[in-house]
């Protein structure tokens, strides 16, 4: 046990810069993927609600994509897109879009019809009803989907180290291949804390968006 602590201390002494570089990489790729996934997931969710007839197929497709093992998606992206940052980001976006898309659809559909109708009756234009009523009321569920996506992104970004995405996953995989407990602990704890922290931050946003329910 004492040996392990000493090894961990030594690692941070000798690899401080490398560690923080990997942390930055991990956060960087995660936020980039989150941004893209929110953009795609939310706009596709809105389109699904507008074009009701096609919604079934799109949501069904993403439901399947949601249960495909993340390792399979990551590996497939190597096959078709090669190794590196670009393929990794693409694969992660694929994994992150489904929860956002599905929660956006659920949130938008949950807004009661009478609330939309009264908003129209007050003289809001269709655009104003979307911006002032429908989207804000769907926000809590959308954020819940974004939180699920965030956890998925941090997790899959760890494995994406295998396909050249860098990040903290490198420490874990190195630890696995050379059987070093200190590396496993450093990598595992770092990734776990990062995931929980990100989820916590989005949780705060979610609570803020629900303030009218608790106020």
């Amino acid at each position, binding site marked *: 046990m004492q040996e392990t602590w000493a090894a961990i201390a030594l690692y941070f002494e000798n690899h401080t810069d490398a560690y923080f570089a990997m942390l930055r990489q991990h956060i960087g790729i995660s936020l980039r993927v989150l941004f893209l996934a929110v953009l795609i997931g939310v706009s596709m969710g809105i389109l699904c609600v507008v074009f009701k007839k096609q919604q079934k197929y799109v949501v069904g497709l993403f439901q399947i994509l949601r249960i*495909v093992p993340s*390792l399979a998606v990551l590996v497939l992206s190597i096959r078709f897109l090669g190794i590196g940052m670009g393929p990794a980001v693409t694969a992660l976006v694929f994994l992150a879009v489904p929860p956002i898309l599905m929660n956006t659809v659920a949130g938008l559909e949950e807004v009661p019809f009478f609330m939309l109708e009264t908003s129209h009756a007050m003289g809001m234009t269709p655009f104003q009803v979307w911006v002032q009523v429908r989207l804000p009321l769907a926000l809590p569920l959308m954020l819940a989907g974004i939180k699920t996506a965030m956890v998925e992104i*941090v997790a*899959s970004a*760890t494995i994406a180290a295998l396909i050249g995405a860098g990040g903290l*996953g490198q420490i874990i995989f190195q630890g696995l291949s050379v059987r070093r407990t200190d590396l*496993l602990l450093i990598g595992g704890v770092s990734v776990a804390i990062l995931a929980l922290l990100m989820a916590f931050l989005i949780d705060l946003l979610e609570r803020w968006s629900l303030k009218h329910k608790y106020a």
Partner: protein
Amino acid sequence: MEFFDFAQRNSSLLIRALNEHLQMVLIALALSVLLAGALTVVAMFFRRAGKILNYVFSIVYSIPSIALFALMIPVMGLGRTTAITVLVFYNQFILLRNFITGLSEVDPAIVEASTGMGMTRTQVIFTVRVPLSLKAIFVGIRLALVSTISIAVIAAFIGAGGIGLLVTIGLETGNNNRVLWGVVLSAGLTIITNAILVFIEKRVAFTK
């Protein structure tokens, strides 16, 4: 097609991977359901305990699997036992959420009537609440099963074998076909399992 030739030449390899995977998944699922069932009963008697359990397991569930696997190695070593332990932990969040909500949402009038007839709390749980929430219980088990199949793929990195091993060894040795078969089997297994269970869910009337 080279891809299919590979399967023909290595059919025993693929079958073994699938077999190992299913074994690991089913053992993990069985243990998960037993543990979650016991915890649910505890939660039905002590509401606070239910809330605490839900909170703790929601945190566990947010930890990326590869990180949790890495953290368990120093404690339990490499191999299938470690993998199954981690899988059981992950499942508790999914199962408890579905079990507890299902059991709590049984029509209070029925519960009251049963209590009024002189049933004890335990009798109400097993003869009223459980039979009336079979659907929620089934949905929970389906979600847990699909998630277990998926996470078990990653368990190959800690020496648990299974379908994931096709991918990891394939990546190491540059064997494209092996990797692709890993992908196809893992994706196929989750999709088909889910489809079958959804089909059953829709066909079976859960309350008599």
